[in-house]
């Protein structure tokens, strides 16, 4: 919980109105982003993303599974987020359950598309090995280690970095005699396929404080928000998902305005992330 005095609240609100926030940023500037990949060697892919004092880890594990009968040509992806009590004492015990569920669902909405899997940021059909029989199940786990606002954007960035760090083993399927039999699979432990992340969107959250909206809000700024809109946008500039949080109503014209601003910001964020991820990958190769 953020305890702020009346003066501090005024200071934050006034700063945002004058386009000069408490930490010296402009309204549409992100905090410095730091990416580290391969932090969990046991996983297929992992990454740690820091945005100021916000620190999250994302981890991808691939397991062989069966595609669901309704979509035999698609693999499965599940996203779970956990908030560690190290981030905030109130997350102790079951204290973080609500926030974890909110973040998990928001990420699913932003990255996986609807129930049919159409329009998903992650290409589900690339995960199928034998149609209707064998596919990869991707488990994406996020962990919030330290929280200072803007968790959704940070988690989205971490998942993107973890996916580009993910190597999925090549699988050889022995041709089975009859179509009813279970196919035999042989997982290669040498050949890995790089996961294609060109379609993975970034998430931009615009937080409305007073009459203006800001990106990458700290927890102090989030405590002053009236509402926030999280928009996930891919490389082509298409919107992949949208979530509105907070109680206050928004004028539809403002939402449209926010989306066009988010689209502009997402291009910068995407470029920044791309360069950070490739720098992190290069660092990892050196070790």
């Amino acid at each position, binding site marked *: 919980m953020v305890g702020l005095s009346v003066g501090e609240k005024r200071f934050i609100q006034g700063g945002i109105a004058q386009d000069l926030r408490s930490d010296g940023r402009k309204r549409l500037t992100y905090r410095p982003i730091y990416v580290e990949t391969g*932090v*969990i*060697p*046991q*996983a297929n892919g*992992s990454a740690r993303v820091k945005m100021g*004092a916000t*620190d999250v*880890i994302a*981890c991808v*594990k691939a*397991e062989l599974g069966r595609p669901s009968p309704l979509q035999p040509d698609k693999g499965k992806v599940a996203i*779970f987020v*956990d908030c*560690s*009590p*190290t*981030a*905030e*004492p109130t997350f*102790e*015990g*079951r204290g973080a359950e609500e926030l974890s569920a909110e973040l998990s669902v928001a990420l699913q909405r932003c990255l996986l598309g609807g129930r049919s899997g159409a329009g998903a940021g992650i290409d589900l059909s690339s995960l199928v090995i034998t149609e209707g029989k064998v596919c990869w199940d991707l*488990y994406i*786990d996020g*962990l919030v*280690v*330290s*929280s*200072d606002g803007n968790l959704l954007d940070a988690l989205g960035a971490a998942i993107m970095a973890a996916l580009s760090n993910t190597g999925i083993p090549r699988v050889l399927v022995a041709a089975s005699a009859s179509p009813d039999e279970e196919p035999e699979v042989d997982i290669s432990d040498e050949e890995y396929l790089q996961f294609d992340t060109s379609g993975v969107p970034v998430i931009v959250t615009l937080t409305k404080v007073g009459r203006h909206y800001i990106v990458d809000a700290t927890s102090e700024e989030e405590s002053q928000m009236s509402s926030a809109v999280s928009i996930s946008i891919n490389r082509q500039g298409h919107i992949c998902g949208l979530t509105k949080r907070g109680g206050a109503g928004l004028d539809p014209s403002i939402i449209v305005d926010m989306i066009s601003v988010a689209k502009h910001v997402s291009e910068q964020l995407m470029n920044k992330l791309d360069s950070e991820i490739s720098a992190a990958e290069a660092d990892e190769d050196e070790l």
Partner: protein
Amino acid sequence: MEFVNPEGLRLDGRRAMEMRQLRAQIGAVSKADGSAVFEMGNTKVIAAVYGPREVQNRSQQMSDQALVRCEYSMANFSTGDRMRKPKGDRRSTELSLVIRQTMEACILTHLMPHSQIDIFVQVLQADGGTRSACINAATLALADAGIPMRDLVTSCSAGYLNNTSLLDLNYVEDSAGGPDVTVGILPTLDKVTLLQMDAKLPMDIFENVMQLAIEGCKAVANYIREVLQENTKQLEVRRGV
């Protein structure tokens, strides 16, 4: 299964009395009052300390000493096979209790009455010896938070497989079913604060294994002291002393 080959090397290439590589970093969680990352080989743990602060639950407040609380949690991806465990299962409840009791023994709680200290440990990777790694991380985090302590607490485990005493078991050695002795000591006062063992072991061998674990604890203590001194030096430089 052969855990020590005829040349005296273990599965991961260590000698019987060799420890895994230690790595520690202070200040991993910027919002906490004190925090640290501690790595023993592939085992990686983050600890964060909040406090001393106002007691959240008034009924638990004590007028003569501080309330120490601890929660241990494991990340979903920390183990080799991914599993989703409910929070507060028996193993983590027991571990929280062990860590709390061990840390409580070394904190000068009587100096901070009416207050509460929270210790949160989060396992990022588990490869044997999480208990020890958690205690070592918690010590560093408490020191970083500037909480008065009698001494550092350091912990290390040792086991006995293939007629050899082994220091600092990894996951494969730990799950072999042999005895696993976890020891926690106060290195300056030379006192044992934590001692746990499963499986059976003859008395004289137990003495040996315990001695080995204590040596391990002392090595960890030396490392932790170095890290703390290095950190203090850096703080000094930043203040311009």
